[in-house]
């Protein structure tokens, strides 16, 4: 019995830091409408800075002062980030904001390694709370008890600030209508900056407070941000109390889940999250969001099928690509096949994002499931290559059936966070279920059969599949199904009012996208001859997002160009620099700030630019009435 009580208390102590980070994320989202992916990075920075400060200044004052100073220093960094970066992207679509703050996270990861080295660091014990309390023979660290008290204390303080101070009233008002707050004479800029500073302070404080409990590593950012996404999805984004309740729930599930499913305790969290979402799609204490901001009018030119001249251009491009084996070597062909595979992957995400308006942040899950499915088919069932290439994508489809069902219940940033959390769950399972997947060692020896083994043959196979996949998705985009999907994206209200079951349409699109991604994954397994958990990881999901963004999210098939350019660039980049995350992160931030239409989107709008005063007048009256 005592053991369970202690386990429960350990869970509560872990909940404190999770709550601090999640409440910070919620507060920032409430006012700025930005889901700050970099929140995990600030948490990590808080831990690193606290490590340095507490190592330099000893004693109780040194320790506690160091923790507080670390949180304040990181909050000041947050202020800089807000003023230099976020102020430029408050009006861009939320997907871009998520990506930009993810780019920031990548940069921080490399900067941390630059500053503190790649090894894990172990911080000092908490001054004054080094001991433990005996509870019926079980030891409870005093520091855990401190954390258990801290959580509710912070919750109470935040409540007082938001209910009883003018600043709190202004923040709550801005949460609802920030322009109106400005129109009443409040300086929005500083309101936003102060809110961001508070949110970052909470995250950094949580990170700093972790150092007596955990090692400081340069991977703690992604770990915590995924947990925090799960917490805010369960608790309801924007609700601080919800964040607290969900943090406790998730921490306890982790604490006890270990006892029930020692290998894959994360499954328990997933089941609870699924249950909550069925009953309350906006989280335990969350509220239904107003319809999500549409990707705003970067362009208003309706999509159209290719003209005959464009068809000829596409055919020529295809013939050029197909003739590659006649003049390129094996390495170039392997790169070519990899690019073709990523074209399939990116095109599948692009279909979901641009036609469906559903920005998945965990699309690698279906790519990876396709790869693992193929590996299982070969290694466990001994299927021939042709059959394995079909079996693999079926795994992707299966994953999409399950996860897609829950994901399409939500939209916008919720959808993004949920898909990310699902992908991370699949990754954890692949990583932890060593018996089946080989864990970190992966599954080796998935080689193509003789008919596809030579570099030219495999290249042609990949190219042919890519062309079929892209053409198929394009036909679907212009089919009644594609229009129903776009209709649901453009106006869910109107779509429902003309008989369209939007959720079913979106789910179907999710299945299509998941299956096509799985096809890419299946080819990828054969290309590499092996499968590792990386194929399910967040970085791969983000690669796909960047490809779509780079190509142009508002175009029909921009992802193809995006995939080719990005993949070629990143293969080259990895060979050139050790700090590829830093460069990639900066690249992502740059695209979002300076180049949001992407390559194809920019070309398209140059092409369509017509200096028509009639159009101006139409636009004018539209804007006027839309206000």
């Amino acid at each position, binding site marked *: 019995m005592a053991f369970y009580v202690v386990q429960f208390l350990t869970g509560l102590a872990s909940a404190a830091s999770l709550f601090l980070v999640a409440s910070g994320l919620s507060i920032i989202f409430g006012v700025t409408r930005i889901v700050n992916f970099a929140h995990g990075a600030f948490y990590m920075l808080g831990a690193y800075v606290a490590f340095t400060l507490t190592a330099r200044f000893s004693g109780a004052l040194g320790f506690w002062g160091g923790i507080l100073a670390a949180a304040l220093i990181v909050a000041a960094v947050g202020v800089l980030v807000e003023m230099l970066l976020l102020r430029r992207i408050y009006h861009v679509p939320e997907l871009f904001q998520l990506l930009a703050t993810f780019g920031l996270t990548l940069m921080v990861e490399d900067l941390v390694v630059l500053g503190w080295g790649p090894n894990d660091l172990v911080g000092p014990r908490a001054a004054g709370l080094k001991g433990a309390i005996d509870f019926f023979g079980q030891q409870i660290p005093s520091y855990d008890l401190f954390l258990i008290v801290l959580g509710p204390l912070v919750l109470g303080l935040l409540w007082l600030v938001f209910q009883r101070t003018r600043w709190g009233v202004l923040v709550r008002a801005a949460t609802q209508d920030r322009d109106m707050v400005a129109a009443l004479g409040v300086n929005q800029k500083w309101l936003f900056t102060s809110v961001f500073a508070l949110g970052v302070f909470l995250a950094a404080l949580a990170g700093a407070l972790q150092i007596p409990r955990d090692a400081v590593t340069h991977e703690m950012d992604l770990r915590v941000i995924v947990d925090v996404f799960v917490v805010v999805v369960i608790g309801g984004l924007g609700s601080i109390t919800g964040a607290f309740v969900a943090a406790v729930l998730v921490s306890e599930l982790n604490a006890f889940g270990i006892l029930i499913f020692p290998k894959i305790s994360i499954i328990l969290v997933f089941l609870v999250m699924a249950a909550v979402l069925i009953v309350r799609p906006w989280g335990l204490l969350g509220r239904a969001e107003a319809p999500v901001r549409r990707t705003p009018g970067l362009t208003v030119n309706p999509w159209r099928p290719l003209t005959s001249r464009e068809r000829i251009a596409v055919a020529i491009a295809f013939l050029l690509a197909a003739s590659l084996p006649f003049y390129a070597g094996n390495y170039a062909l392997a790169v070519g096949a990899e690019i073709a595979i990523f074209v399939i992957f990116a095109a599948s995400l692009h279909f979901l994002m641009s036609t469906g308006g559903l920005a998945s942040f965990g699309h690698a899950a279906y790519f990876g499931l396709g790869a693992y499915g193929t590996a299982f088919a070969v290694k466990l069932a001994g299927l021939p290559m042709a059959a394995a290439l079909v079996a693999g994508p079926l795994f992707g489809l299966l994953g999409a059936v399950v996860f897609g069902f829950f994901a399409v219940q939500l939209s916008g940033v919720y959808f993004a966070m949920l898909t990310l959390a699902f992908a991370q769950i699949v990754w954890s399972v692949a990583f932890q279920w060593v018996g089946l997947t080989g864990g970190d060692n992966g599954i080796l020896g998935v080689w193509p059969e003789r008919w596809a083994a030579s570099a030219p043959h495999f290249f042609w196979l990949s190219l042919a599949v890519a062309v079929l996949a892209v053409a198929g998705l394009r036909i679907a985009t212009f089919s009644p199904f594609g229009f129903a999907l776009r209709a649901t994206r453009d106006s869910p209200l109107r779509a429902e009012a003309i008989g369209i079951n939007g959720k079913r349409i979106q789910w179907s699109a999710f299945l299509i996208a998941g299956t096509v991604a799985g096809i890419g994954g299946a080819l990828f397994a054969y290309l590499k001859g092996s499968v590792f958990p990386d194929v399910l990881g967040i970085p791969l999901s983000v690669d796909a997002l960047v490809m779509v963004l780079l190509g142009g999210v508002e175009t029909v098939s921009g992802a193809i160009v995006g995939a080719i350019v990005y993949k070629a660039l990143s293969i080259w980049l990895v060979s050139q620099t050790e700090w590829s995350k830093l460069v990639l992160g900066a690249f992502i931030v740059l695209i979002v700030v300076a180049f949001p239409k992407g390559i194809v989107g920019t070309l398209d709008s140059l092409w369509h630019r017509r200096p028509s005063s009639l159009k101006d007048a139409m636009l004018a009256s539209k804007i006027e*009435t839309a206000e």
Partner: protein
Amino acid sequence: MSSQPLLSVEGLSKSYGGVHAVRGVSFALSSGEILALIGPNGAGKSTCFNMLNGQTAPDGGRVRVLGQDTTGLKPREVWRLGVGRTFQITATFPTMTVRENVQVALSSHDRKLFNLIAAMPRYARQEAERLLDLVGMGGFAMRACGELAYGDLKRLELAMALANRPKLLLMDEPTAGMAPRERVELMRLTAQIAREKSIGVLFTEHDMDVVFEHADRILVLNRGNLIAEGSPEEVRRNGEVRAIYLGEGLVYDARHREGAAP
């Protein structure tokens, strides 16, 4: 058939957090009739409307369309029974062309939503153009819907609402945000179509000039209760309606004031 009303509503009720938004509202509407629902802001008009097409589930009461109980059905199911709807703030698909907007509604009516092969730009093109001609938008078929002026969007919405050959049209503040002349034109068009195809129309409106001009009958809602019902003339004369809603008649056209010559 004539004995059965197109729409019949009995004892419709809804409350939010203890506040009664709609209390026991009952009325009927027959084919070809144009019925206006008016009342002060917050009287429950929108709630009432949303319960009729399934957007909101009522706490109590019954809604029947041509005798069939539609209470608790989803908007898309109500639509399949032949109920078209337009919104207070237009809801259209801004990234499509005007014609594609109508084609989507037509493909849904034909139950072709899961067709992955057909090319939409060619789908039911003539029928789409016929509907656009009907509302006077024939010349705009290839225009981007996102570029349309507000009044044209309202007409496009009407064309979309007509795509499933409805028997009943629900129009929530059909002329809100339009210039006075456009208001009159849109309602004249609606009334003409409704009479020709014997469609029943229920609409809410604050513009009394529109209401008194086009409604055959008027329902007045206040604090969730139906307080008056009758012809425009009767409603105009009703003292309670004047006190609660119409006021002294300072802010609408003189010819619609009480006592003015018809």
